């Protein structure tokens, strides 16, 4: 079988065709006469005897085949198919947040059947369990293991990029080729021209760490993913100073009221959606807010059809009802939000200690204490020594205007809450109804219900987070959760699920991925990198939104050191990246502004490497493809924010053909780099200098041989993380384990017998958040926010996609793929319509003369794609939808990102403001894409 993917037919698996069909009889040697004699003799004794004595395979007539049936022997056929030699455990390194543990059955060395392992330990006896956990895609990963998409050998491009011409190469040749290109780039242009991109450590901690570790050791740039794919909810870092912290899915069951807002759980959180349907049966009221009647809506108590992109108006309308009807939790607001914090009315800035005292600190802020009638310092602020939110005897005023003495005289101050009330007055239900299309009475009703149900929760997803003004949407919704005192309690809060930011074992992971330390690593916000290097000129809509062009904000941000941009000097000298190494991700397929990337960024790169187990769009447009082992063939670890367990990948079968694990590939690359004997002096982001000597790379990569194996790299993570101390890879192979503790980066302890929920340390332990004010901060007094953007408080701003094209183009996550994975898988495609599909309302289709299943062209100024049309009344008028992820080569023209561009919202370029400072995957500009409009017309193939 050398050189070929094994056959996985029943014949190969069982080792034969149906064994029951192969019974062989010896030819009769009896003479005819003898046989007749015998037959007649037997006939005297009856028919049955004839049949048996003559060894005839003669069927009897079955008179009533209900119940007794004499020929059950054939049934061994299917019993035989359900036999196996062994089974093993794995999961899927896919950015789906599933992190589901799977059992894979092996027979004749073929991994022939996957089944959900279903052995997560229960949290307690009342919550629904995590067993079974999986989906239809995970049920058929074997299609890729043995499929034609599998990359089996190193491939080196022989034609033009994207042309699909390849030659097989030996590992040594491919690695030397890459190593020489890296060395050339570093020596000619500097290490910050060597760029590494992968998506999300949580899905494969060891595999991710492999590439990052090499980047760290050679001085390369590691690109972010969470902000770039717009899964980062910027409103969380803005308001809470966190990346994202959400409850695990089991806590949904603890809610009494759930607003599912732009989070299509039924499609995008298949393993967890049952917690919502179970909660509903348990009496939890489910409200679904979506622009279209999507699958999650069908199981809701109320479906609210909001006009696409107006979600923050709706949230603020509900907030209006809650404040005007005094349905808010006053005590909570005083203790856990910045609502009572004093703001100067002259300049809109927080009143700072540095305004009041000569030695005062800029990171200390004031309440107005109603008990004493004075401004008093709030505890827990960023410069406060007391790391507590305990306000003691202070009774902060929520409303009012007060006069305070400052170094520059008397100044009028008011509270954030007073400013908010004023701001919210323009969001009365009637006005909001005009914006959102939602009945004013319904807005009021849902606001009241949400405020009175305890605990209540908003589950948010990409449906709102992928808009340009995603930060405002997040902030408006968080406001609802905070006004009602729901943040920090079981069953309550604002919980965001898109992408998989949470790799619980962060400490161990960071030690493995960045052995020189995070501070010495060049991290790059990918949205900015792609935007600048792809020469996105900026579309007219976003250019005119702000007082200055976006490019000026970018320059100021980079020059201020708020956001890094590699290579250094890009904006002034036109330096460009030279090498791009992508592993375990499909950068080019997922990139917004795909057309600009191919036109402008791609030609700048001297080397593009794609490391994957399957061919994908990035691979097709790369120079070298390295075959990584599949998810059945390696040791690794996976976690998710949707549950609180860690489960491993294990090598159930050996790596097929010439594939290697990511850890081994990067180790081999380290060896190839060592062979060049290259060395150079490097100045790191933290200002320190170092000499990098490539000849010692393999030794550094393996930590003197201790991390030579994938399994020991995984064990290193377990050993160095508070979540998993004392656990071993073998223990996890035996059974997934629940985390023992949480590290500082998360906002809650993990408690025995309780589902994890966020902000427990704030609410229960009074621990300050990492925000400037230490509180849930709805007021941002950064100069840009105050004077240029007018977003110091959450406001509604409409989508920015102009009016040139009529149809809003949504590219949501769907049930049939995880990004590009399974988009080219036959067994999944056979359960769809076989082609990329775009949905349209019947009236919109009729107006364009389109019929169901027509080939259509979807186009705007950015690009065009051809897809097939599905006409459905689930869609409102004016909206069109294509589930994302389709590989570029599944389209006759374009890719699903062709109509999109990259739009940077300058609010997300801010730094130097307390908690708003660049932090990879925590804070940086998001690569949103929902503010896109297109037109659709019938596509006629030119013959």
């Amino acid at each position, binding site marked *: 079988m050398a050189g070929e993917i094994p056959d996985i037919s029943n014949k190969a698996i069982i080792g034969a065709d149906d064994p029951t069909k192969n019974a*062989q*009889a010896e030819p*009769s040697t009896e003479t005819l006469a003898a046989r007749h004699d015998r037959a007649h003799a037997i006939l005297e004794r009856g028919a049955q005897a004839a049949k048996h004595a*003559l060894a*005839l*395979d*003669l*069927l009897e007539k079955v008179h009533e085949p209900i119940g007794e049936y004499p020929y059950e022997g054939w049934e061994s056929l299917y019993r035989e198919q359900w036999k196996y030699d062994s089974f093993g455990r794995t999961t899927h390194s896919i950015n789906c947040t599933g992190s589901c543990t799977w059992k894979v059955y092996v027979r004749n060395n073929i991994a022939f059947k996957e089944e959900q392992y279903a052995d997560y330990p229960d949290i307690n006896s009342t919550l629904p369990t995590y067993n079974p956990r999986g989906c239809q895609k995970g049920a058929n990963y074997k299609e890729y293991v043995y499929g034609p998409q599998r990359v089996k050998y190193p491939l080196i491009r022989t034609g033009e990029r994207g042309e699909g011409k390849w030659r097989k190469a030996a590992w040594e040749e491919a690695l030397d080729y890459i190593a020489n290109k890296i060395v050339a780039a570093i020596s000619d242009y500097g290490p910050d021209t060597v760029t590494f991109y992968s998506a999300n450590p949580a899905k494969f901690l060891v595999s991710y760490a492999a590439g990052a570790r090499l980047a760290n050791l050679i001085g390369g740039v590691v690109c972010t993913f969470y902000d770039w794919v717009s899964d980062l909810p910027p409103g969380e870092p803005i308001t809470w100073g966190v990346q994202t912290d959400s409850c695990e899915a089991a806590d949904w069951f603890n809610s009494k009221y759930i607003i599912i807002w732009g989070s299509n759980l039924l499609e995008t959180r298949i393993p967890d959606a049952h917690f919502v349907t179970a909660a509903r049966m348990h009496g939890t009221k489910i409200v679904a807010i979506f622009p279209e009647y999507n699958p999650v809506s069908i199981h809701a108590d109320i479906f609210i059809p909001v006009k696409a992109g107006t979600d923050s108006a709706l949230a603020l309308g509900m907030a209006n009802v809650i404040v005007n009807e005094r349905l808010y939790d006053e005590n909570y607001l005083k203790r856990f939000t910045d609502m009572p914090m004093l703001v100067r009315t002259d300049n809109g800035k927080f009143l700072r200690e540095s305004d009041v005292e000569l030695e005062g600190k800029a990171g200390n802020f004031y309440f107005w204490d109603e008990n004493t009638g004075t401004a008093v310092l709030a505890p827990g602020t960023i410069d406060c020594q007391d790391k507590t939110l305990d306000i003691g005897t202070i009774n902060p005023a929520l409303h009012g205007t007060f006069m305070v003495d400052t170094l520059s005289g008397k100044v009028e101050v008011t509270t954030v809450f007073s400013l908010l009330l004023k701001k919210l007055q323009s969001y009365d239900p009637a006005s909001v109804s005009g914006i959102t299309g939602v009945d004013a009475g319904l807005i009021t009703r849902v606001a009241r219900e949400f405020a009175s149900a305890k605990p209540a929760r908003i589950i948010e997803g990409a449906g709102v987070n992928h808009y340009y003004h995603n930060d405002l949407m997040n902030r408006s919704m968080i406001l609802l959760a905070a006004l009602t005192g729901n943040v920090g309690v079981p069953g309550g809060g604002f919980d965001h699920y898109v992408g998989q930011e949470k790799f619980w074992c962060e400490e161990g992971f960071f030690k493995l991925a960045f052995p020189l330390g995070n501070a010495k690593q060049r991290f790059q916000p990918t949205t900015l990198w792609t935007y600048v290097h792809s020469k996105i000129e900026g579309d007219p809509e976003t250019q005119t939104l702000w007082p200055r062009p976006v490019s000026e904000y970018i320059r100021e941000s980079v020059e201020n050191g708020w956001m890094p941009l590699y290579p250094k000097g890009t904006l002034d000298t036109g330096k460009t990246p030279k090498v791009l190494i992508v592993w375990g991700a499909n950068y080019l397929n997922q990139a917004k502004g795909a057309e600009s990337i191919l036109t402008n960024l791609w030609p700048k790169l001297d080397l593009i490497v794609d490391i994957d187990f399957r061919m994908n769009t990035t691979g097709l447009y790369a120079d070298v493809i390295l075959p990584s082992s599949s998810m059945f063939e390696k040791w690794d670890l996976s976690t998710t924010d949707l549950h609180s367990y860690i489960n491993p990948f294990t090598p159930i079968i050996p790596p097929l053909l010439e594939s290697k694990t990511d850890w081994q590939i990067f180790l081999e690359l380290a060896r190839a780099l060592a062979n060049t004997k290259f060395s150079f002096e490097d100045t790191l982001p933290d200002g320190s200098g170092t000499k990098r000597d490539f000849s010692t790379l393999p030794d550094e990569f393996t930590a003197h041989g201790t991390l030579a194996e994938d399994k020991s790299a995984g064990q290193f993570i377990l050993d160095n993380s508070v979540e998993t101390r004392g656990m071993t890879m073998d223990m996890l192979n035996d059974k997934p384990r629940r985390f023992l503790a949480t590290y500082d980066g998360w906002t809650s302890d993990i408690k025995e017998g309780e589902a994890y929920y966020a902000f427990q340390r704030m609410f229960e332990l009074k621990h300050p958040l990492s925000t400037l004010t230490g509180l849930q901060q709805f007021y941002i007094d950064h100069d840009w926010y105050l004077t240029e953007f007018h977003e110091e408080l959450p406001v509604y701003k409409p989508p920015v996609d102009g009016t040139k094209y009529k149809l809003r183009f949504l590219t949501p996550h769907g049930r049939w793929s995880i990004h590009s994975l399974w988009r080219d898988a036959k067994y999944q495609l056979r359960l769809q319509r076989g082609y990329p599909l775009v949905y349209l309302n019947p009236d919109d289709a009729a107006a364009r003369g389109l019929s169901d299943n027509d080939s259509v062209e979807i186009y705007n100024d950015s690009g065009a794609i051809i897809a097939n049309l599905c006409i459905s009344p689930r869609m409102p008028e004016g909206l069109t939808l294509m589930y994302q992820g389709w590989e570029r080569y599944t389209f006759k023209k374009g890719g699903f990102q062709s109509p999109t561009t990259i739009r940077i919202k300058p609010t997300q370029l801010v730094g130097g403001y307390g908690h708003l400072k660049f932090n990879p995957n925590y804070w940086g500009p998001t690569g949103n894409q929902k503010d896109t409009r297109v037109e659709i017309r019938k596509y006629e193939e030119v013959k």
Partner: protein
Amino acid sequence: MADSDPPAEIKAAYTPGTISLDPEDPVWHNAPETTIIFSRRLNEVGARTTFLPDEVRQAKVKAAHNGTDIFFFYQWNAASENNSVGDYPIFADAFAMEIPLFTEESPLWMGAMDKPVNIIFWRADLPAPENIVAGGMGTPQTSPDAASRNIRHYQKWENGTWSLVITRPMAAASENQVSFARGRSYRIAFANWKGGAYAERGGHKIVSEWQALSIE
């Protein structure tokens, strides 16, 4: 109708030497031709409630043997060629010959448990005719033994006619086959199925009365 017709006599003449699987083989030039009438249908059991137009079909039969192998040559009219069962509503043309397995006579309709029949079943889509044993309606089964996969054939549909040559060693290869002995005479019956839109299959077919086959 056909009940009163005397059985046709099919003679398998002895021709020493090689006989090829070919309707053009010289052996057929002088072989006597017998016309069989398919005249009987069964509606109540086989296909339960299939109702078919009254119809009489015919086939021409020739037979020959060389002492070791016996050959049958059949021709019948078929307006279209139906040689596939590759989709739910698609059925193939078929033809069968039935001989009592070890009794002198068996019930025409697939024999009986104590009087089983041996059937050679040809269907246009199959790689080879099947050796079948049946002991009554609903019981026919392709013999599972490898030995009885000893039937070879030639088939061709042309200009509205099926030509079918079937051959088998005269000696039974297993318990599941009748042996053809020289000088002996056998009862033999035939069945014909029209595939295509007629969708004839299983009991839904048209059959002849018992005829006589004599081996020279």
